[in-house]
C-alpha cells in the first residue's frame, strides 16, 4: 500500500479494533490491492498519489494531522465525482469485509 492508502485505511478502520486487529485488516487490504490486475492497481495508485499530494505536502511542512483526514474521506464518499467516490468506496469495502471476516468483531 502507498502512504496515502495506508492513511485512508487507518481512517476507515473501526476505532474499536485493537492494534493487532487493525494490522490484520491493513494486511488484508494491502494483499487485495496487490492482487488487483496491474492496470486497475495503477489507476488506484495514481489516484492515491493525486489525492495524497496535499496531505503529503502538509506532512513535509509538519502540518499534517491524520484526524483531519476523517471528515475529508467522509465527504469524498458522497462526492459528485465518480472517481473520488469510487476510490473511497473501494478501500472502504475492503476494510469492511476484512473487519467482519477477520476479527473477533465477526463473532460479536
Amino acid at each position, binding site marked *: 500500500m502507498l502512504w496515502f492508502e495506508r492513511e485512508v485505511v487507518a481512517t476507515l478502520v473501526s476505532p474499536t479494533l485493537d492494534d493487532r486487529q487493525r494490522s490484520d485488516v491493513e494486511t488484508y487490504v494491502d494483499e487485495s490491492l496487490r492482487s488487483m490486475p*496491474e492496470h486497475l492497481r495503477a489507476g488506484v495508485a495514481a489516484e492515491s498519489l493525486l489525492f495524497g499530494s496535499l496531505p503529503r505536502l502538509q506532512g513535509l511542512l509538519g502540518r499534517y494531522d491524520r484526524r483531519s483526514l476523517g471528515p475529508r474521506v*467522509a465527504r469524498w464518499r458522497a462526492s459528485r465525482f465518480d472517481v473520488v467516490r469510487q476510490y473511497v*468506496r473501494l478501500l472502504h469495502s475492503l476494510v469492511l469485509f476484512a473487519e467482519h471476516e477477520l476479527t473477533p468483531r465477526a463473532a460479536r
Partner: protein
Amino acid sequence: MKPTTVTLDADVVVIGSGAGGAVTAAKLAAAGRDVTVLEEGPWIDADAVEPFSLEEMAAKYRHRPAAALGTPSIAYAEGRCVGGSTEINSGLYHRLPGHLVESWRDEYSIDEFDPDTLDAYAHRIEEDLAVSRLPGAPPPSSALLERGATKLGWRSVEYSRVFRYDTAGRGVKQTMSRTLLPQAVDAGATVLPDCRVHRLLRRNGRVVGVRCQRTADGRVEDLMIRANHVFVCGGAVQTPAILHRSGIRGRVGTGLKVHPMIKIAARFPHPVDHGGVPMQVVTEFGPNLSIGGSASRRGQVAMALAEASDNIEDALADWERVSIYYAAIRAEGSGRVIGVPGLRAPIVTYRLTEGDMSRLARGLVHLGEVLLASGATELYPSVADGPVVRRQDGLGAWWDAVTRSRASLMTVHLTSSVRMGEDRARTGADSFGRVWGYENLRVNDASLVPDAPGVNPQGTIMAIAARNTDQFLADT
C-alpha cells in the same frame, strides 16, 4: 538465479482445469490419450477452506477485486485453482434452454448443434456429478424467495445443484477437483498445478508447444511442453488473453458477454441462514431477467449495506437478519478482453446499453417487490446513496437512482469471447472449437458459448466441452 528449463512431451495439452478443461481432460484420458493439464493456480483440498470466506478468496480467487472497465464498471470473479470457478461458485445447475441452442445455431451457423444432442451430453454430466435437488426443506433464505414469488403470483423454481447428498441430507459440492480431475488422473492424465502459461509456440499454422513457468517446492521452473494438440480452457477472460499473448487475434477477445447483477441487502424480522446460496430462482421475467440469492456471510453483508448508505451500524448489528439477493440480466451490450504483452492480467472492458440500464432498474424494482412480499422490512440497494426502502410505494424511487455513475454491478458469469460457429466474420473458432487458422489448436470453455445463456452457465460449458471433445476424438 536463472530458472532451469525443462522440456516435456504430451500428445494433448489442456490449459485450464475448470468446467471446460476438466471435461476435456477426463474424456481424453478415458480414451487413452496422453494428456497434460496445466493449471495456473494451486491444487487445494476442496474442504480446506470455508466457502465464500476470506480464506477462500485468498486461496482460490484470481483477483480479490477485479472489474471490467466501463461506465458503470462491472466487478467480476474468477477461480484460480485446480477446478477453476467450479471450486468457488454456488453449484447451481441448469441445462442450456433449447430455444437458445436453435437460435445460436442459426445465428452463428453452428454445425451439428441441436437441443437433443446437447441434452444427451447434459444428461450424462448430470449423472456423473449427481445433479439433484435439495433432499429436504430449503433454507430460510431460499424459502423466502419462494414465499414472495408465490404471494405475487410469479413463477419461481428451485434450481438443481451439483451436490451429492448423503443419507443424512448433507450435501457436498461436486467440484472438478473432487470429480472429473481425479478421474482424469486415474486414467493416466498429468495435472500440473501452479503452472502459468506464457504463450503458445506456433509454426506454419500449427501450435507446436506451450511455454510456461511452474512453481514447485519453492523452485521456479521454465517448462517447454511439446504437444500434438492444444486445448485452451482458461475461461472467457484468460483464454483470449493467452491467445493474444501468443499472437493469435482475429475474432478473439471480442463479444464478451456477462450477466450483470444488481443486488439488495434485505433485512428481515427473523434470522436468515448465511452458510450457502439460495437455490430458489424467480423465473417470471426470464430469460432476460432472473432473480435469486447470493452468498451472505457477515463480511459480504457489511459490504452490501455500505453500497447504499453510510448509516449502516443498526442494520449491521442485526446482520443475522440480513441476506443478499440479486437481479441479473442478459445484457445487450458486450465487452472485450485484450491481452497486453508485459501485463499479467488482460484488460477487460464492457459497455452496457441504455436498454441494459433500464432492465437493471426494472430488475431492482422487481427484486424489491418480491423481497417486501416475502416479509423483508428494509431494503438496501447496491446503488450509491440509493434510497433505503421499507414499503412498496418507495420502490419507484429506484427507477431514477440506477444510473451509470451510481449503480454498483458485479458478475460471476462470463462467456462468448471466442465464439464458435462457421460464420468466420463473427466467430473465433469453428463449430467444434478449433481456432480459425490453426489445425491443432482448440478452445473448449465458456469462451465458445455464443451469448450469455441467462442461466448458470456451468451445465452449458460442460455439455459443449463434452460434445467438442468427442468430435476431436472422432477426428484424430
